[in-house]
């Protein structure tokens, strides 16, 4: 099926190209129309066959493996490529289903690492079940729950003395069985191949405790060493239990898009152009701007289709975000991967009290939905929903800091501990100088900006990469600086007009806070908290 799915895209592109070309040809070449159509059809058919053949080859040559250290993908027909994504560095795992994939039951798994839009290991296409299994296994292993961790789980269960003895023999056993047939690669699979080794999904129903993974691993009798079957890891990696916390109603999404700046601009534009056409009788302006209008329509449609039915759920694997109208995506963001959080509100959304919450991961530039750098965790939500989401993405946010967060969303001035720009900055920023402020929370640095377009940004202390201050000549006269916290993931929250002396103290304190937070930061394998 994979070749068919891949070839379909290629064929569609070729058909489109062929159609464009044939318009010219039809106009110029004095051939019978039937012959031209036949020729074009023949070329397209040939192209489909060629791309099918190529896709088939590409699929034949593609194989992946999930080891306890990394996900490995080998691909390429002429130029072979082996990509290894280290499990500890995984930023998110996404299961995506294009429209055809939903019809035929296929899905792609994207393992996203830090380091740019290209830092994605894409397993396309797997059967739906296999994709789920791969997702679960990758997350389970990345969390630190895997074959090698059986002993750890046993220790957790309080079998210290026995487990110590067992550990040696069992890990030897595990190594032997996993490393047996396929050498050091673990289980080698061919995507979508029926009956691939490991029989994905087949063993998943067994040994799954009702409470999910930890139970499953301890449920497997760790005290009696026995040869572990090759598909063991899959049995250890059931889908982690999850609890849905947010669902976006279609009506609200439509409403939010109607109140979006782009829609308003679009409507004003259409009214203006049509009015211009009616009054002057010249419609050139309408035709001239049709592509720009289509662009806006495309943006709004893209938002609608990609954020349709957004659901956010909590699971031990992290946050699960599912969304999509035609093409669905289910993204899992493990704990501690959020680099920065931004909450926005435009002037029109204020009427409805809506906010948009986005998170930045360390992978820059993922997504073709316009939000190139960020993931909209909460495409549109109320203040209360924002608060819930904030508690999820910033687990260390204290309940008593809620008032400060609200002041960050809607407040201004120095209430709730916010530090706004000094009064002398009102000359250069008459509108927002009381809005532009920062506040140091226990877990993160919060920056508040904008009076008309409100924005609230959080940078967790342990995620701060570096800090910067800059100052132009006018700033210097006013003894203010622009402060910025650099985060991974491409955005750097910036706050203008901070009092110079305050900024000096903030730089020093923030560097120290970031240092302290990094020291106590949780382990990268988030299920290993129990490890001494």
């Amino acid at each position, binding site marked *: 099926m994979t070749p068919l799915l891949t070839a379909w895209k290629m064929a569609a592109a070729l058909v489109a190209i062929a159609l464009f070309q044939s318009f010219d040809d039809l106009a110029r070449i004095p051939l019978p129309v039937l012959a031209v159509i036949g020729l074009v059809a023949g070329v397209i058919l040939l192209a489909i066959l060629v791309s099918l053949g190529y896709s088939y080859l590409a699929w034949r040559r593609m194989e992946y493996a999930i080891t306890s250290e990394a996900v490995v993908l080998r691909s390429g027909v002429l130029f072979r490529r082996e990509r290894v994504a280290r499990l500890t560095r995984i930023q998110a795992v996404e299961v995506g289903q294009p429209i055809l994939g939903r019809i035929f039951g296929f899905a792609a798994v994207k393992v996203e690492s830090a380091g740019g839009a290209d830092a994605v290991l894409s397993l396309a296409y797997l059967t739906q079940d296999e994709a789920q299994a791969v997702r679960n296994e990758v997350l389970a292993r990345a969390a630190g729950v895997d074959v090698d961790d059986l002993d750890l789980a046993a220790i957790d269960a309080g079998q210290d003395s026995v487990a110590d003895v067992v550990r040696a023999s069992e890990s030897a056993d595990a190594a032997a069985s996993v490393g047996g047939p396929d050498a050091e690669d673990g289980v080698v699979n061919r995507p979508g191949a029926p009956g691939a080794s490991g029989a994905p999904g087949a063993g998943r129903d067994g040994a799954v405790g009702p409470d999910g993974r930890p139970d499953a691993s301890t449920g497997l009798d760790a005290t009696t060493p026995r040869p572990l079957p090759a598909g063991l890891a899959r049995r250890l990696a059931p889908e982690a239990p999850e609890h849905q916390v947010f669902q976006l109603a279609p009506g609200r999404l439509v409403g939010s898009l109607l109140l979006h700046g782009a829609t308003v601009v679009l409507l004003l534009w259409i009214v203006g152009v049509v009015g211009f056409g009616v009054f002057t009788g010249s419609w050139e302006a309408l035709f001239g701007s049709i592509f720009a209008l289509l662009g806006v329509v495309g943006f709004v449609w893209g938002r609608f289709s990609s954020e349709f039915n957004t659901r956010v759920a909590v699971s031990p694997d992290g946050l699960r975000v599912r969304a999509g109208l035609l093409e669905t995506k289910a993204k899992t963001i493990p704990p501690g991967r959020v680099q920065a959080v931004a909450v926005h509100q435009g002037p029109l959304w204020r009427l409805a009290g809506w906010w948009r919450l986005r998170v930045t991961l360390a992978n820059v530039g993922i997504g073709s939905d316009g939000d190139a750098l960020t993931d909209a965790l909460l495409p549109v939500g109320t203040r209360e929903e924002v608060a819930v989401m904030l508690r999820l993405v910033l687990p260390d946010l204290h309940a008593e800091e809620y008032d400060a967060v609200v002041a960050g969303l809607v407040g201004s001035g120095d209430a709730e501990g916010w530090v706004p720009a000094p009064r002398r900055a009102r000359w250069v920023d008459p509108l927002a100088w009381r809005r532009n402020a920062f506040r140091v929370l226990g877990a993160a640095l919060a920056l508040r900006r904008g009076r008309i377009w409100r924005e609230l940004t959080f940078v967790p202390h342990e995620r701060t990469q570096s800090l910067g201050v800059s100052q132009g000549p006018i700033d*210097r006269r006013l003894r203010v600086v622009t402060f910025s916290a650099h*985060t*991974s993931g491409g955005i750097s929250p910036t706050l203008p007009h901070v009092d110079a*002396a305050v900024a000096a103290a903030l730089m020093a304190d923030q560097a120290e806070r970031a*240092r302290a937070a990094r020291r106590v930061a949780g382990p990268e394998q988030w299920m290993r908290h129990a490890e001494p």
Partner: protein
Amino acid sequence: MTDPASGPASSAQPGPAPLPEPGHAVGGESTSGTDPFAPDGVTWRSVSPRLVRARLVTAAAWLALPFVAGLVLAIVFGGWVWAAPLAVAAFMAWIAWLVPRQVRAYGYAERADDLLVRKGVLFRSLVVVPYGRMQFTDVSSGPLTRALGIAEVQLHTASASTDATVPGLEAAEAARLKDRLTQLGESSLAGL
């Protein structure tokens, strides 16, 4: 483009000084402790004065062509066309005045846990990079800077917006800094 506040202040700055140079923020506002560009207890090191030469040569190479073209045209046509080479010459003079100030304004400091890099005279900026956040370090030099025996060290964190570049380091100092940064980065390595 001249700033009355920074003009006299930076001319009070001592000229090219040997390394290491104990100093204050260029622009020398004496608000120590409250000036974010001059944190307390920081010993700044300046970059090699040879960077002035490198930058001036580069600028001259870029401006030579428009200058010569303008000169030729002026000689041919005369009159108001003389404004063109004169404008280029004035620009060159301004560059020649600006570059030494800019180079003097560059400074870096190695603290216990982080590296500070500052730059700029009129538009100042300062970056604080914790060693543990460093992803990789670049040491680069072009043909001209190599001939002058200087190199540029650039620190990269996981954030694309971290702009921590120290140009114009003596080759030996660049190597030392790179080694030290790598060593410190390893010992205080943190995840993303």
